[in-house]
């Protein structure tokens, strides 16, 4: 029976230090930093290191994860001060001469360790009417026709996995939890620029609100944070333009 070994030449395991911001709601009054030494390979993900701690040292360490390859959006966290997915951040891409700092994403209520309350994030998503609204009925049993070029216009924003890395990297969102935040605007963008959709105006009115797109200060944190490489700031700029000039 063949058990494949990692494709890259096996490198020596070595020890790194993870400083994790802990919060055990049934014990702690406030969050505290705790340090863990853990043996890893350079090709390991930060998620692997967290699992090793949970499975071998401290089972109380709590975090969300599922797919482990950057597609489900469960494990957004702040790693060395930047929002990333733990499963898409390889140890070899971090400076391991220093401890690696890991903490929950900011701006959403902290529940336990690296877990935050996601409900305000999804509430903002729901508010922008994130679903196709078309006035005309397609021919029965047929698809709506859309040109390759029209499909391309909103391709980038269909990649969103709702991980919240963008929204919780935004300084405006940190200070004003009412702000829709980048992810909700990305969700709106995906429909505003879909040639099959007829409700752009409704969504643009929603985002023209005082908690809407005009709060964006174009710091590009969101674009830097997006694990899917979405040009988030550009999408927000597109929406601003559409409010001023109408949809393209």
């Amino acid at each position, binding site marked *: 029976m*063949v*058990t*494949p*070994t*990692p*494709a*890259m*030449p096996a490198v020596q395991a070595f020890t790194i230090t993870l400083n994790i911001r802990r919060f*055990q*709601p*049934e*014990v702690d009054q406030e969050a505290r930093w705790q340090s863990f030494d853990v043996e890893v390979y350079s*090709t390991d993900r930060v998620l692997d290191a967290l699992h090793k701690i*949970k499975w*071998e040292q*401290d*089972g*109380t360490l*709590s*975090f*969300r*994860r*599922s*797919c*482990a*390859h*950057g*597609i*489900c*959006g*469960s494990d957004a966290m702040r790693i060395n001060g930047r929002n990333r997915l733990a499963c898409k951040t*390889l140890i070899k891409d971090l400076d391991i001469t220093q401890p690696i700092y890991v903490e929950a994403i900011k701006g959403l209520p902290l*529940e*336990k360790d690296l*877990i935050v309350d*996601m*409900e305000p994030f*999804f509430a903002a*998503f729901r508010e922008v009417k*994130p*679903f*196709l609204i078309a006035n005309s009925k*397609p021919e029965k*049993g047929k*698809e*709506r*026709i*859309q*040109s*390759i070029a029209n*499909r391309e216009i*909103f*391709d980038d924003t*269909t*990649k*969103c*996995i*709702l991980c919240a890395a963008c929204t919780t990297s935004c300084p405006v969102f940190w200070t004003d939890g009412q702000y829709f935040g980048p992810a909700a605007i990305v969700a709106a963008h995906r429909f505003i620029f*879909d040639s099959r*959709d007829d409700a752009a105006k409704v969504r643009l009115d929603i985002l023209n609100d005082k908690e809407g797109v005009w709060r964006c200060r174009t710091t590009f944190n969101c674009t830097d944070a997006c694990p899917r490489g979405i040009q988030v700031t550009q999408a927000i700029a597109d929406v601003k333009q559409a409010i001023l000039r109408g949809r393209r």
Partner: protein
Amino acid sequence: MSTATSTPKIIDGVHYHEYDIVIVGAGGAGMRAAIEAGPNAKTAVISKLYPTRSHTGAAQGGMAAALANVEEDSWEWHTFDTVKGGDYLVDQDAAEILAREAIDAVIDLENMGLPFNRTPEGKIDQRRFGGHTRDHGKAPVRRACYAADRTGHMILQTLFQNCVKHGIEFYNEFYVLDVVMTTEKGKKIPSGVVAYELATGNIHVFQSKAIIFATGGFGKIYKTTSNAHTLTGDGVGIMWRKGIPLEDMEFYQFHPTGLAGLGILLTEGARGEGAILRNASGERFMERYAPTIKDLAPRDIISRCMVQEVVEGRGAGPNKDYVLLDCTHLGAEVLETKLPDITEFARTYLGIDPVFEPVPVMPTAHYAMGGIPTNIQAEVLADNDTVIPGLYAAGECACVSVHGSNRLGTNSLLDINVFGKRAGRYASEYVKKAKMPVLPKNPADGVIALVEQMRNASGTERVASIRKELQESMDRNAQVFRTEDSLKEQTDIIQALRERYKNISIHDKGERYNTDLLEAIELGFLLDLAEVTVYSARNRKESRGGHMRDDFPDRNDKEYMVHTMAYLTGDAESSHAGDHIKLDWKPVVITNYQPMERKY
């Protein structure tokens, strides 16, 4: 966290809810069912994750439907390919429904907003995929409707968006641990489910007329897998513990192109676009094994050939233990526009750029063909043909059986949409006539006992080490090739692990977000399902589809042209599998296609 509007009744600390239909699982099948059921009946969807975290989102290549948008095709050809692809263990009435209803299923999704790739005329574009052919095997056909290489992601998002549109009530991060059965007029029917709320540790009972299980697969019985950490087969395990049989559990699919050593999926769509598998010397080895459709042979065949290449010393790499997926001739544009995600996976996780270098790949545990037996209305069966009224299952957790002994690529995204919709529709019809069943006394007692026993256990064994040993040994003994010896060894290993599992303890004793507790319970389901898988595999002394026995290399239609049905009998805790598992057979439904030799 829930989006429900009604408040539960609390009795003795247990929260009671009432719905017409409760759907367990919020992946593609669950949400497709919800969209069908929501407008017709009071519906709740309960998931141990947030809906958009479900593993449907990891599916890449496409969804099959004979739209004939780019070349001649017919749903009858699709039916035949599905039957042949499943090595004739497919129930042909179900396969016909799958292929026939595929066309509406794709159009439904497009009309809901799914951004499919388009043809120059603006229609849904289609690509080639393994085992899908023109006119009964003559040549590959373009049948897979796709959205780049994130078709599953787009399906999951589109279904979630439409659930938001319909105001479907979700209970997120609620872990269903039991289905409650009630006896009415001498018949056993389901009356609700019991869930553990991860955020608080509270126990919830959802009383309902109908229950749809859409809980996905259990790839985590293996180490090398494309499956998410959360795919621990809880739904299938719950049914098993309730005495519902499990069908065809020995048939597990190993997807040929997992990133070597990691198991992360690289879509078959890559080969659909023209990528080629090569061995160490650069030979396109599939030409030898499947001269007509080569690299687009079904997954079971490709996986076996890959392992054979490696075993016979033609593997690539320093340890000669993988083969290569060569995409370099496709060009950067095809990779960036049609296969962007897998291109990035190779770059991120192996540091290899598929534009310039071939990618190391090996088979990865991917999909359970077997599961909870259902009929074509997605109703769960208590034996070969007795329906349990009000209980439904759809998607990977179910076995209709449209996949037989080997699923074709793009037929699972199809399965969740066709049979998810059917489950929602038939459940909606059922609850119109059905009365709300009466709950038995203290319906949550079993779950409360299970949770408290886990929380307070004071044994010496660690969950993580038992799980690791299970997964590594399953890779060793019950993977692409199996023998009586390897399966016997695995039986003994699982027996020992099940004993050790009785002696575990966990660190986290808290009520809130206790993922330590969750993992301990999940391991119980993994051990149960691994045991049934191996027990069923030992009993099938032939090779068919995803079940390849080195010691019985041929298909044996005379003795084994039947589905396996495994029943839990006697003391579930007894250590010998044979003391609590009874195996039986179920006939295969054959309509138009008599079994033939399977050549490509």
